[in-house]
């Protein structure tokens, strides 16, 4: 490719101008001769070309020479292969398998028959299908990166594309999680570190789109995006720094389009069994109710069939009533119990039992916290529609004995607190069926 070279005229943090005696195209990448600095052509007027820095301009000096390669982002990202961490410009950062594991072990053989989602018991709350999008909305203790690392570690998809917006710590956390899931060689992490200039971060949606297009055809694929809110705020920062006109809601006019780009990466199952599922996190602003306050959040249900709004309860995240999508049996029971408890449909005696049952139920089924030490050991005990019917039958015939039974059960379940959710669920389902179902389950 013929190289076109020009010298830098002026530099400030948000724009670099050069004089070029050759034609340039808007969106073309320019690289400094030492390869340290990247810019993208934003505008040109006669010979004066304005570049938007994609890398800190301190790598550039007045009079430095800049090469116009004529290469686009598509071509750069087209060279990315599985198992790597790359940045928005397609530069190789490290291999996913290079992350040190410390005392954690790497499991290379994923247990068969497990969910691709990695949402543990939270996934059972909703009925999820491959090729769908799931939005998690809330303020999880420790932040979304911690929660998404948990998801990345327990997912069982064939390949994973992950967008990491944190520093080294979050990046290593994700890489460790992917190694733990045994998918290090079949994953790509797009890393957008916080110290990149806003223009570089605004490329994230485009880069994700290109990566998703290039790295296709690998069975059941999962795309994880930890925090859409943070990404949108970076777009806002980009809008203010680049002079892109802002809408009255404070976001640049491209935000709406880019949001659609990033949320529409999922793909339903094709004839040959390939699919792309997607989980995105959205942290809402402190002190506001989630769905109404953010100008773009109300658009979420348009893209995501399932949204789980998370409430914090004693450091566990429990789904809130505002969640949307189709509930699984366990979700229906949980919702119904909460609703009936709230409107006071139970007599005082049963109410106490339901109170205990609810706390027990919360512990058993919908407890999912990124800082919870419970982990899924692959044993799957379904809480199906029969369990749902059985529970309601027992609730209808509840008396004082029922209350005592629940308390006894809770004692038994809690004394197994170290054995994780599946063991506790066994105990619960056995109780529900009066021990008759034990042989079938084990």
């Amino acid at each position: 490719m013929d190289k076109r070279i020009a010298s830098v005229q002026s530099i400030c943090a948000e724009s670099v101008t050069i004089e070029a005696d050759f034609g340039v195209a808007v969106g073309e990448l320019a690289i400094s001769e030492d390869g340290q600095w990247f810019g993208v052509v934003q505008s040109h007027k006669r010979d004066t070309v304005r570049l938007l820095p994609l890398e800190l301009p301190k790598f550039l000096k007045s009079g430095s020479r800049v090469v116009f390669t004529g290469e686009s982002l598509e071509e750069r990202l087209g060279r990315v292969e599985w198992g790597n961490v790359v940045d928005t410009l397609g530069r190789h950062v490290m291999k996913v398998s290079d992350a040190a594991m410390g005392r954690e072990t790497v499991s290379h053989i994923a247990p068969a028959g497990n969910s691709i989602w990695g949402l543990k018991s939270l996934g059972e709350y909703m009925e999820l299908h491959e090729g769908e999008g799931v939005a998690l909305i809330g303020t999880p203790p420790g932040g979304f990166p911690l929660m998404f690392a948990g998801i990345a570690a327990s997912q069982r998809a064939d390949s994973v594309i992950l967008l990491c917006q944190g520093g080294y710590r979050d990046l290593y956390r994700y890489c460790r999680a992917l190694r733990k899931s045994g998918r290090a060689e079949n994953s790509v992490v797009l890393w957008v570190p916080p110290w990149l200039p806003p223009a570089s971060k605004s490329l994230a949606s485009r880069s994700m789109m290109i990566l998703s297009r290039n790295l296709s055809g690998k069975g059941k694929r999962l795309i994880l995006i930890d925090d859409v809110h943070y990404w949108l705020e970076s777009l806002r920062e980009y809008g203010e720094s680049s002079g892109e006109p802002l809408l009255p809601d404070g976001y640049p006019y491209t935000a709406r389009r880019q949001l659609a780009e990033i949320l529409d990466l999922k793909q339903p199952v094709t004839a040959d069994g390939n699919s792309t599922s997607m989980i995105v996190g959205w942290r809402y602003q402190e002190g506001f109710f989630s769905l109404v306050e953010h100008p773009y959040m109300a658009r979420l249900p348009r893209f995501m069939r399932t949204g789980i709004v998370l409430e914090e309860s004693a450091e566990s995240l429990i789904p809130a009533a505002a969640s949307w999508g189709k509930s699984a049996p366990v979700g229906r029971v949980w919702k119904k119990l909460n609703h009936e408890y709230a409107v006071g449909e139970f007599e005082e005696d049963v109410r106490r039992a339901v109170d205990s049952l609810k706390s027990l139920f919360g512990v058993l089924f919908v407890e999912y916290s990124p800082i919870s030490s419970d982990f899924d050991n692959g044993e799957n005990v379904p809480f199906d529609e029969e369990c749902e019917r059985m529970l309601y039958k027992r609730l209808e015939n509840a008396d004082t004995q029922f209350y005592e039974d629940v308390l006894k059960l809770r004692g038994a379940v809690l004394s197994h607190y170290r054995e994780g959710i599946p063991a506790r669920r066994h105990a619960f389902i056995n109780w529900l069926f009066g021990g008759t179902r034990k042989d079938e389950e084990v």
Partner: protein
Amino acid sequence: MTYIRRGSSNVSELSGSSLWVENLTGVVLDDLVTIRTDRGETFVGHVVEIDGERCHVRICDGDAVLDRSSLQVWVGSEEIELPSVPPKIAGHISSPSVLHTGIAPLDTLFPLQHGQFVFVAGVTLHRSLGFASSMLHGALAGHQWPCLVSLDTSENEAEEIGDVWHRMGLEGEGLFLSHSRDPLYRSMAPLRLGVEAAIAHANEGRDVFMMVLDLESWFRFYQEDLALRGYYRSRTSALNGFKNELVRYIELLQGHKGRITVVMLLSERMIAGMPSELLELRDLFDSYLVLSSEGGLALDGYTPQPLPGTDRSVEYARMLRRQCKELKSRLDAKRRDEYPFTAAERAYETAMREFLLDTESRGIADPKCVWQILGLLPESSLGRVPPALLREYGMPEHGELDV
């Protein structure tokens, strides 16, 4: 820092805190320069734009009378500048040990571990400072090198902190203060110096306990810095930039074998009745502690999941904390619905309140007291602790043990 003697005395334009300097060769954007007047005063400036042979410098320091003809501008400065991209650290996971502060509610419910990053959200500055000084006392007892960075400090506070430092016998070591009347660059210097010193001590193999007061001031300085560089940012967008800046500092302090424990304070978590938007920054930290309006510890915080092989007390603390949180929300709901409290519930609430209010640092804290407070309630209302443990620890000292 190398001091490169390159400079220019050709200042072509001067307006407000802005200088246009001609022929200052070899400068790079964001470089620091030293501006010297003929009276011998020096100021720090930042290069914010380079246009061919001219460069635009913003003075971030001082507001003296300047005369264009007598100014000398030198490239470089004796000030420290931290790297704008943190160095790549090894992705190791250290095995943290428990940090005992001697503050009973903290050690029993929110045990901190060495090398953690802790976000403390207070209600008022005065009470937050009280808690901060207790924590520092506790850290000192653990033979750590204490390092306090206090930004935007008033005279009164500075005096008070000086007294505390003197009482602890530290003679100014590890104390980095900037005064409220300082201009921007001097205001931020203690932070950079503190970070440098903390890293230096950690590299020498010492455990460092670093405390930064407080995030609100730091955010204000960050915005002031943006404005001085001539950028327009809304508060929300500035907050995003500040979050990025904070990540850079956190990354710098990490990776020293878990030797640096950092506590950052947000002294006012409510502003005009609304939660401060800076609370969002807590996601960057490992632990989150909330202070109540009375100055005690509130139950809303959290600490991270204990790694396998961590002290058993951390696991128990987590269990107790979750139980206490659940009880609190249940009792709050009961109060809201105007249900009467039972005698046991009243006793529990009073005992818990007193326990959380006691934030003095006094030696080793015994987790037994929390079990005993829980023991005031009937076993049927405690859904998150194993009954066997409750029976073992929850009995009064001289009571019968029923295992």
